[in-house]
């Protein structure tokens, strides 16, 4: 190697700019075309399901469009429902970069909501910026500890994170029930035990010009920030290396343990924020309504977005719109409320099946386009 001169190094083929762009587009297109095709295939399977039941798929999708996307009113409804999904999806997508499948975001959402409600009540009387900040911080700490612990158990004890996170979610819900029925209960809440309702001054209102609360803006910013973290920073790079091969990362001198715990804690903290916004903007109090499956829908969002934080934004909007149309579909078509769950399940299965297609199509191979140029 020492006597090698510059002239021995083969000069890189300078491809024309066009073919370079095509190669770049081909590489990116695979990650967009295949999930979209899977989405359409999933909808087709669901259409067959509806046909088998004697229902009209055309009517279903027409109602879905009307209830979730067709008007400013329904778009706002979709965005409102997409908001917790953004945070819940990040709770899956961040650990995924480290090769971890964390599916217990529901627990962090629930505890984040309870922590926010508790601090909103305890600090009542203080100026609202301070209280809202404290609520957010408490929610993030509660959620961060919960999922951070999952990461720590994974790294230091080799406890499977998929199972432990789901167990932790069940424990979190039991903890919420205990707190909401016991020490944090508002005696005035009779039928549905809840925490003390949040003072109006500490509620987080809508973004000007729309009916959707600030959680949406925070969620979108969080997605962009997570994308930057993963794609543009050395921590993100280290996480991807560790996700590919833990031993290689350790040989490189990367602190894999802190990396795993840190990413998981951040993921949980974001899920905790979802709970905080549910309490501060939607419910006004913490109760069993916090555990209505946002965490599980978030898993689907993250997998559909192929664990890409930026991809989570449109996918959350799509699933939010489908959920927003749920009521309309139930009433007009006489279908049970679980219809949306069935559709989600079918989409999830088909999208996972599409994983087998990556790398199979020559169209998406960048080299093909380079050579063509």
């Amino acid at each position, binding site marked *: 190697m020492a006597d090698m001169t510059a002239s021995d190094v083969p000069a890189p083929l300078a491809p024309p700019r066009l073919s370079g762009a095509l190669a770049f587009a081909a590489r990116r297109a695979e990650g967009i075309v295949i999930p979209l095709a899977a989405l359409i295939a999933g909808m087709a399977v669901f259409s067959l399901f509806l046909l088998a039941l004697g229902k009209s798929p055309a009517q279903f999708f027409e109602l879905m469009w009307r209830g979730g996307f067709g008007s400013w009113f329904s778009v706002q409804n979709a965005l409102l429902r997409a908001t917790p999904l953004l945070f819940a999806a990040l709770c899956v997508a961040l650990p995924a970069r480290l090769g971890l*499948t964390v*599916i217990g975001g529901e627990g962090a959402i629930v505890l984040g909501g309870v922590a926010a409600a508790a601090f909103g009540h305890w600090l009542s009387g203080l100026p609202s910026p301070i209280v809202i900040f404290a609520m957010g911080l408490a929610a993030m700490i509660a959620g961060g500890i919960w999922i951070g612990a999952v990461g720590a*158990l994974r*790294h*230091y*004890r*080799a*406890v*499977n994170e*998929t*199972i*432990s996170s*789901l*167990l*932790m979610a*069940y*424990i979190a819900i*039991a*903890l919420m*029930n*205990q707190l909401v*029925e016991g020490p944090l209960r508002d005696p005035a809440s009779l039928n549905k035990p809840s925490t003390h309702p949040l003072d109006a001054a500490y509620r987080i209102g809508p973004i000007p010009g729309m009916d959707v609360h600030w959680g949406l803006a925070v969620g979108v910013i969080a997605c962009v920030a997570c994308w930057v973290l993963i794609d543009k920073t050395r921590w993100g790079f280290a996480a991807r290396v560790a996700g590919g091969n833990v031993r290689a990362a350790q040989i490189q001198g990367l602190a894999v343990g802190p990396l795993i715990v840190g990413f998981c804690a951040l993921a949980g903290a974001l899920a905790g924020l979802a709970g905080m916004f549910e309490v501060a903007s939607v419910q006004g109090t913490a109760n069993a309504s916090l555990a209505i499956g946002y965490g*599980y829908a978030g*898993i*689907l969002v993250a*997998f559909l977005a192929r664990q890409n934080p930026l991809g989570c934004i449109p996918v959350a909007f799509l699933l939010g719109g489908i959920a927003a149309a749920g009521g309309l579909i139930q009433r007009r078509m006489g279908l*049970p*409320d*679980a*219809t*949306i*769950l*069935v559709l*989600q*399940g*079918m989409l*999830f*299965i088909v999208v*996972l*099946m599409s*994983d*087998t297609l*990556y790398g199979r199509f020559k169209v998406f191979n960048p080299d093909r386009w380079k050579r063509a140029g």
Partner: protein
Amino acid sequence: MENDIGLWGVPLAILGGAIRVSTPFIFVSLGEAVTERSGRINLGLEGTLVFGAMAAYAIAVETGSPWAGVLAAMVAGAGFGLLHGWICSFPRVNDIAVGIALMLFGIGIAFFFGKPYIQPSAPNLPAIPLGDWSSLPQVRAALNVNVLFLLGAVLAVALWWAFKNTKIGLIVRVVGDSADSARAMGLSPTAVRLFATAFGGALAAIGGAYLSLYYPGSWNERISSGQGLMAVALVIFARWNPLGCFAAAMLFGGAGALGPALQSVGVTQGYYLFYAAPYILTLLIMIATSSPGRQLAGAPGELSITK
């Protein structure tokens, strides 16, 4: 009062509760043990369990026979298992993720078709009163044992024996330990795993049938509290040994019975935390039995979850 046995009621209620509560754990964990021994993990058994509960209840309502319900649940559960096994047979498809998807799908479709069956009541599975020798009603209640529990116990022994002594048991173990050696022996790992997953699904659905047809004995959307998932953790704790699965299921059943047992003697503080006891126990057991340094003893070599 002659029948008042005071605090002795607590361990007795826990024993009775363990027998009652453990049955779904026994079936799901035995099924999952077979699937995992073949080198694949099916996290979707929670969905299979819920769908099995719905299917069993619906068929029992329609036919008037709880056993027809159990049979229907088995068929449906095997179908879910085949679906999981089929999807996982494609290259680069992750069995854990498919399990999560099937869990959500199974629960969704069970709620979808189960809506009309929340109201009607189905005939229950029969129980055998093994406590008739005693004059104490608490003992009689604790030893009123369902037929499925006894079947589960027999099945645990049978599977343990079959893994050791039969050709099928050997085939499943070989496929689970090394797909390459299995191929060298002329076996098809994909086919073996397909059947092992279908078998596991059928057993998990029996666990669901027990929930809706015996204890608690009704169908609603809160029928399962994660038994299907805990059973997966339990299999790891039991080191993939069917007899261990049975013992662990009894332990879990006892933990699940702790809350109601304490409530029956007047302890109501912390009810929800006692309700969480099985989850906490599962987690503690997983922490205690896992180790970062070595592979778990007895783990099938091909299993993604322990690699």
